[in-house]
């Protein structure tokens, strides 16, 4: 007892003194799912989207809206967030942040400053998506109600993620990827763009989710090119597709070609791997891109006989050409913008660091003159569950 008594008394005093220090009850935190950052004259206007848990989990399907948006202004992002506590019902809790939306104007002015807070804050994880609101302010976009997902941040996140896996032109950009592209010298960052189809003011109201066909939705289909940290331009669908091909980001997608007799054939890409190598040919930089793809025939809408091997080989040849065209189009656009978004510079620095050292200061100019060699290899594996199509022979 002599040895235990002091130990026990120390323990009890310790528990009594510390108590439940830094405890945050679930009913004291406001879970922030989306953060919108817009620039104003002298600072930032930050809007947060808070979850209303009672409305979401209610078994009866609650009448209240699942999310709320509050906004406040401040000289820095963090000051604006703290100022938010004057309007928000509870202290914002950022650990479950899913989406960060920057207004287009803000993106054009430069993203480095707000990004520092996002990386540094201890309560934020690095797995949220960064997006740019195309053609509008982040605050307007964050307010749009979506059906099925009561919290629109979830909808944005899952739709970008699903689209990336099933539709070539979309790319999801997480914070760590963006930051590493920002600080890398051989690569320029890109960001997904979100557009609101319809009037965002109507999107803010409950009637948006009370109709069968949703009038106002958020579409995530664009890739925005940043030079340094400023938004310069958007890639269109074909160029985005080419971008994803080059950066080995294709999981599953579809593509079609025209047949001779009219009509189209669509193939579904199941696997794709891109090898991008940089080499120096006598001090001249060159990029070699080698794409291997496996695909299935998904849809035959022209009178072609796909049971013959020659047909398949011909199709493969045509698809190779088409993919090459897409890729070169994408690279041309990047060259026009003088932005190396593919990481060609990085590939070259991996090939020969010393030569890269000489090039990197004028890389923007060098990039426009870069020679890119592509080799595309599509293999068609299966033809679906029927072999010959029942299209009418002309």
């Amino acid at each position, binding site marked *: 007892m002599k040895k235990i008594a002091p130990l026990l008394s120390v323990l009890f005093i310790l*528990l009594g003194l510390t108590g439940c220090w830094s*405890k*945050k009850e679930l009913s004291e935190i406001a879970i922030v799912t989306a953060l919108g950052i817009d620039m104003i004259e002298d600072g930032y206007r930050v809007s947060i989207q808070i979850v209303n848990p009672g409305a979401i989990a209610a078994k009866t399907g609650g009448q209240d809206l699942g999310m709320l948006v509050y906004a406040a202004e401040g000289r820095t992002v963090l000051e604006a967030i703290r100022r938010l506590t004057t309007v928000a019902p509870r202290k914002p809790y950022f650990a479950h942040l899913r989406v960060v939306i920057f207004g287009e104007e803000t993106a054009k002015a430069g993203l480095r400053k707000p990004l520092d807070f996002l990386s540094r804050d201890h309560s934020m994880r690095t797995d949220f998506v960064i997006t740019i609101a195309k053609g509008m302010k982040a605050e307007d976009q964050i307010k749009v109600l979506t059906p099925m997902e009561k919290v629109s941040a979830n909808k944005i996140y899952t739709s970008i993620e699903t689209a990336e896996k099933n539709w070539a032109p979309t790319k999801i950009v997480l914070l760590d990827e963006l930051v590493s592209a920002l600080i890398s010298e051989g690569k320029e960052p890109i960001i997904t763009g979100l557009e609101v189809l319809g009037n965002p003011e109507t999107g803010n109201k409950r009637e948006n989710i009370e109709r069968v066909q949703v009038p106002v939705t958020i579409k995530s289909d664009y890739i925005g090119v940043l030079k340094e940290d400023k938004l310069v331009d958007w890639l269109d669908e074909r160029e985005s597709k080419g971008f994803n091909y080059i950066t080995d980001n294709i999981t599953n997608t579809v593509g079609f070609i025209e047949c001779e007799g009219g009509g189209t054939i669509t193939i579904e890409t199941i696997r794709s791997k891109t090898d991008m190598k940089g080499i120096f040919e006598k001090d001249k930089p060159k990029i070699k891109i080698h794409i291997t793809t496996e695909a299935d025939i998904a849809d035959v809408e022209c009178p072609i006989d796909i049971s013959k091997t020659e047909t398949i080989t011909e199709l493969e040849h045509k698809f190779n050409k088409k993919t090459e065209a897409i890729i070169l189009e994408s690279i041309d656009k990047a060259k026009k913008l003088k932005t190396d978004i593919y990481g060609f510079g990085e590939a070259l620095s991996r090939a020969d660091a010393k030569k890269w050292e000489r090039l990197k200061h004028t890389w923007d100019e060098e990039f426009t003159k870069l020679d890119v060699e592509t080799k595309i290899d599509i293999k068609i594996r299966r033809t679906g569950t029927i072999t010959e199509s029942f299209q009418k022979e002309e």
Partner: protein
Amino acid sequence: MKLSDFLKSKKSKKENWDNIEVQADAGQIPSDVSYVIDGIKQTMGNSADIITRHFKTGENGLIEIGIAYTDGLADKNFVQDFIIEPLMTDLRITKLDSENINQTNLFEIIKDFHVPGGDMKVISDVKSIYTHILSGDTVIFVGGYSKGVAVSSRGWEMRGLEEPSSQTVVRGPKEGFTETLRINTSLIRRRIKNTNLWIETFSVGEQTQTDVALLYIKGIANDKIVQEVKNRIKKISIDAILESGYIEELIQDESYTIFPTMHNTERPDAACGALLEGRIVIMVDGTPFVLMVPALFIEFFQSSEDYYQRADISTLLRILRFLCLFLALLTPSAYIAVTTFHQEMLPTRLLISLAAQREGVPFPAIVEAVMMEITFEILREAGVRMPRAVGPAISIVGALVLGQAAVEAGIVSASMVIIVALTAIASFVSPAFNMAIAIRILRFVFMILAATFGLYGIIIGLIMMVAHLASLRSFGVPFLSPMAPFIAADQKDAILRVPLWGMFKRPRLISQKDMVRENSARPKPPKK
């Protein structure tokens, strides 16, 4: 008054354990029978159930015989038919009191020829008289001799063999120990027909003189442990031994721990299994619970049924029991820690779901958890003490009223009720009640740690608990073996249960003799 004055312990009035010596007996039987009989009546305060009889027998009525026994402990019919009758009638027709017979032989002749009864002892001191009378034996005194004969005539009302109430199995024998020591030893003898099964009896307790029996298999059990157990039992100096729990507390290795270091059982097959592994079984008269020594942590999660079912089922069930150990210990604390300090660890959807449930609840998570746990403990204790007739009503009241209504009133959240119910049921999975109590107590400690320090507190608590467990020893054997000294050979029966044809050797640390248990090959159908 300084703080150190409080903390200094007062001089202990109890004797130091190591200095106790065993006391010796004293007193001789007087040779005058009436003196003895009167003495017995007086010492027992003329208790109505101590029957004494003083009569004269022999051809000429010159032999004085005194009989003493306890009504209720001794079988009256046996005493009448086989002790008193031969002494009265047979002696009468024998020519024993003629001058030819040497006086000194009379006692021997009576003892050898006229006292039927297998268990017969000659006693020569006064203390033994009472010991025998109060155990149900009959004591016979012959006039002129300062010796007596104690014949076993035990026969009292006892409970028949029933299914053990506490450790039930689906498959296996349904006999349980009873309160009579002799019946219990017979149950073990029936199963182990081995000359090496030795039984040693002690009489413990100043006032109660309870019979305590020590069973072990010589040659398998570790002699040092046997000796140690005997020493400790002899050193016990207490008023009364009413149950084996008294013995357990008085001879256990570590007193300042909530974990039991001796296992108890009500089942003969479990006791036999323990004996065959080299353990020692301590039986106490008056209770069906026997102690098995030394005990390991793993044993409290094993059931004898594990050996009667197939090996794969038993292994999975044991793994389930360990899982339930952690569930019962940590579920409320993990819930409190994660929802109060570490909300970032939950997936967003789960967090929103939990947050929705906690919206209207007025109490913080720890208060809710402690409230519900205490309520459940109250329900459980009440259920144990409840008279049978009212039992179901309590379970209905408990489940419906407290659980459901509390949720609907908004006092506790539904997830807390789920967690408390899950924890409670998980704690019943462990077959040993004494370990389950230890877990119940620790659960509250972990809850407090979780509420003050979060997951960090839980980890600290777990580390301390494991360190404490590793430091415990049960009669010299480390408590956490075969995990901590990791004995690979013993893993076959710890959490896994290897099929019987794979268990070659006995547990190493217990018997210390690497004896091969069996050598049967894996069963296969015969080749053509």
